[in-house]
């Protein structure tokens, strides 16, 4: 931060310059309406100097304030042309057009005080050379009246032509500046503050007025003096627009007060983001809590959040309490202009943020629990699938091969009736064992589902159902394996329940995809009143479905049938 003494000294210097302008104008022998001229010039000069000082004080990291102060003093320097003292008059006259160039510089350098792009730098440099360098040449050529101490040759006609060219070139510069401002505004659509829009408008208007004024000057237009006064009036308004933007930021602090009130009324963690967004006036605000235990940022529900890299569209501000990281605000870069507001809001939200973080941590733990549940299910599923495969490739194949050998033996012993009878008996035993093994294997893992798809598997299930079933499977392609198996179990268990309890005369089974979900629905026309707590069947189904992030709901009422509906998320 600049030292207060420096600021106060510059302020004093500014006041002196302002008064001096009056003195210069009133003692001048070549200024018409001196009081009016001095007032008009101070109307522009002083706001730039004082506005610049305020900006410098409040935003020391930006060069913009310094640039405004310099612009103010440059305008004062051009006032020196009013004096009768030849040397000072010559200095002032050389600076006559300089304000136009420095104002272009100021407008294009908002808000950082730097010209970010090459085009801007080239334009401003060109404007400085035209306004100051060529003016100096004009002075050397002996232009601008008798008090010119810089004259080395008297070519007033050439000097006048040169001045005309300068004025036209500067008009073009100003209009190019307007175009650049318009282009920037179009390119960066943001939820800009109204005060910011006002400021850009005042920049553009100022540049247009300068262009009009200089063009009028180049062609010795009759209304020149009126245009000049209007231009000065407009230019003096720009620092006011700038200060109102700063003041707007101060006013925003009252929003912090509102935030306090909201926080006191037991704000739910889910509403904290909205409250902060209102206080910061940034509807795009995102709030991410830091969970040291997980080493990651999460949203209020505990879902992982990736912090964006700071760029033109998003910025991240850390919220730190007692030197411990609590959360991060992801916000519009416009808020960078109001660091105090961000600071005040973060401080006010302290306790609520702690609450929110606890809530988020709970959410993250639940999420982790759900994921581990899904992993356990998945691991169990894989193990069962492996066992089924082993059974199929091992015991079942061997038993079949054995039965085949017995069959062949039976053929060879065609004539030995007793032996044949024994062999036939043995084959029957093997057939029974195979049947049992098949049931066990299917119970472990319905291989047909993973091999041939849900549609094929359901066809058999439905054909063997205890009541007539209408089946409709509307799946454009195969589902992920664990979803197919879960859906298969839902249908299988529900049909078994219908057989046991429903006394139904018909049922329908539907499987379809809808909005990123697989919907499995089994409806019967039975007596209803299915007990969802009784037995582990439905409970087990619900566990399986929930572990996959889905939901299982059962509608049942006495005499009105039962509907089992599972919704499984499926991207």
């Amino acid at each position, binding site marked *: 931060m600049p030292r207060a003494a420096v600021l106060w000294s510059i302020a004093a210097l500014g006041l002196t310059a302002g008064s001096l302008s009056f003195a210069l104008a009133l003692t001048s022998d070549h200024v018409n309406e001196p009081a009016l001229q001095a007032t008009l010039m101070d109307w522009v000069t002083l706001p730039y100097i004082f506005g610049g000082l305020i900006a410098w004080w409040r935003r020391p990291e930006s060069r913009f304030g310094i640039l405004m102060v310099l612009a103010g003093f440059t305008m004062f320097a051009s006032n020196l042309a009013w004096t009768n003292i030849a040397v000072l008059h010559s200095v002032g006259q050389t600076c006559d057009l300089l304000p136009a160039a420095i104002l272009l510089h100021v407008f294009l350098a908002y808000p950082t005080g730097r010209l970010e792009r090459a085009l801007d730098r080239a334009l401003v440099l060109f404007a400085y050379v035209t306004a100051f360098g060529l003016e100096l040449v004009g002075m050397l050529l002996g232009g601008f009246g008798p008090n010119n101490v810089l004259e080395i040759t008297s070519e007033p006609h050439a000097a006048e032509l040169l001045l005309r060219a300068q004025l036209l070139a500067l008009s073009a510069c100003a209009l190019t500046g307007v175009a650049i401002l318009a282009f920037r505004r179009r390119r960066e659509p943001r939820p800009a503050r109204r005060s910011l829009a006002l400021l850009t408008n005042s920049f553009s208007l100022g540049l247009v007025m300068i262009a009009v004024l200089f063009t009028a000057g180049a062609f010795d237009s009759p209304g020149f003096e009126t245009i000049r006064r209007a231009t000065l009036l407009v230019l003096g308004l720009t620092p006011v627009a700038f200060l109102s933007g700063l003041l707007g930021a101060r006013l925003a602090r009252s929003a912090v007060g509102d935030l306090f009130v909201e926080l006191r009324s037991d704000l739910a963690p889910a509403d904290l983001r909205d409250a902060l967004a209102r206080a910061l006036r940034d509807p795009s605000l995102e709030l991410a809590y830091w969970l040291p235990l997980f080493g990651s940022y999460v949203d209020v529900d505990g879902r992982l959040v990736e912090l964006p890299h700071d760029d033109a569209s998003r910025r991240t501000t850390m919220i730190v309490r007692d030197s411990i990281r609590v959360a991060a605000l992801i916000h519009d870069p416009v808020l960078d202009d109001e660091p105090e507001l961000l600071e005040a809001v973060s401080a006010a939200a302290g306790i609520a943020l702690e609450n929110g973080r606890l809530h988020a941590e709970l959410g993250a733990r639940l999420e982790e629990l759900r994921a581990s549940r899904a992993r356990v299910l998945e691991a169990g599923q894989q193990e069962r699938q492996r066992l089924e495969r082993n059974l199929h490739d091992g015991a079942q194949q061997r038993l079949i*091969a054995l039965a*085949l050998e017995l069959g062949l033996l039976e*053929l060879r012993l065609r004539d030995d009736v007793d032996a044949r009878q024994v062999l036939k008996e043995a084959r029957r035993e093997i057939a029974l064992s195979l049947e049992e093994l098949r049931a066990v294997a299917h119970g472990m893992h319905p291989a047909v589902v993973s*091999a041939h798809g849900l549609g094929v598997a359901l066809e*058999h299930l439905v054909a063997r159902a205890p009541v007539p079933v209408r089946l409709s499977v509307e799946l454009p392609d195969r589902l992920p394996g664990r979803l197919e198996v879960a859906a298969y179990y839902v249908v299988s268990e529900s049909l078994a329940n219908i057989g046991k309890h429903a006394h139904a005369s018909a049922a329908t089974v539907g499987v379809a995809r809808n909005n990123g979900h697989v919907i499995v629905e089994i409806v019967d026309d039975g007596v209803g009143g299915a007990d969802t707590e009784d037995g582990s069947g439905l409970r087990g189904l619900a566990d399986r479905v929930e572990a996959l992030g889905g939901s299982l709901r059962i509608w049942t009422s006495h005499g009105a049938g039962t509907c089992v509906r599972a919704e499984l998320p499926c991207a």
Partner: protein
Amino acid sequence: MRVAIAEDSVLLREGLARLLADAGSDVVAQCSTGDELLDEVRMSPPDVVIVDIRLPPTHNDEGMQAALEIRRRHPMVGVLVLSQYVELGLAMKLLADSAEGVGYLLKDRISDVEEFVAALQRVASGGSALDPIIVSTLVSRRRAHDPLESLTPREREVLELMAAGSSNQGIADRLVITVRAVEKYVSTIFGKLDLPSSGSESRRVLAVLLFLRG
């Protein structure tokens, strides 16, 4: 009868080959994957192929895919699919729009050697062979108004044998009645179920299956 086999279990594959050799068939190829079988069939089409539904590399539906491919590309080659599970959905997929020269049996059935060879011969000569489990699942399927209730127990037996792909002679042998008697049963059944009588025996299988499937 020229037979090609695709079965990844060596024990079973060789047992099958021995069984077929004993029965006087010519085993022209023994493969362990569906792709091998397809190559063999392309090079020298046999009368019939025996395919295990579960074949490497993934043991999912490679055998089924090979069977469908042969049905599509080589309609003259009979296809008998063996599996450790029989599923109505797979039977319907395999038959699609024709029961000609196709069979789908539980793997256990090979131990009844004579019946298995008879089924294979049927498939090789353009007939069909469906596992009794498929047929009984279809026959016992619950229906709102079951037209099968109008059938006598004997007619039901004939219907089941018919659906499994048996010829009239086969049915006659099994039930120990004359072929004439079988023909009479068949026409009564078609009349009761209101089915249009169709010419060939394999077309009859599909008609009955589609009717039973509802």
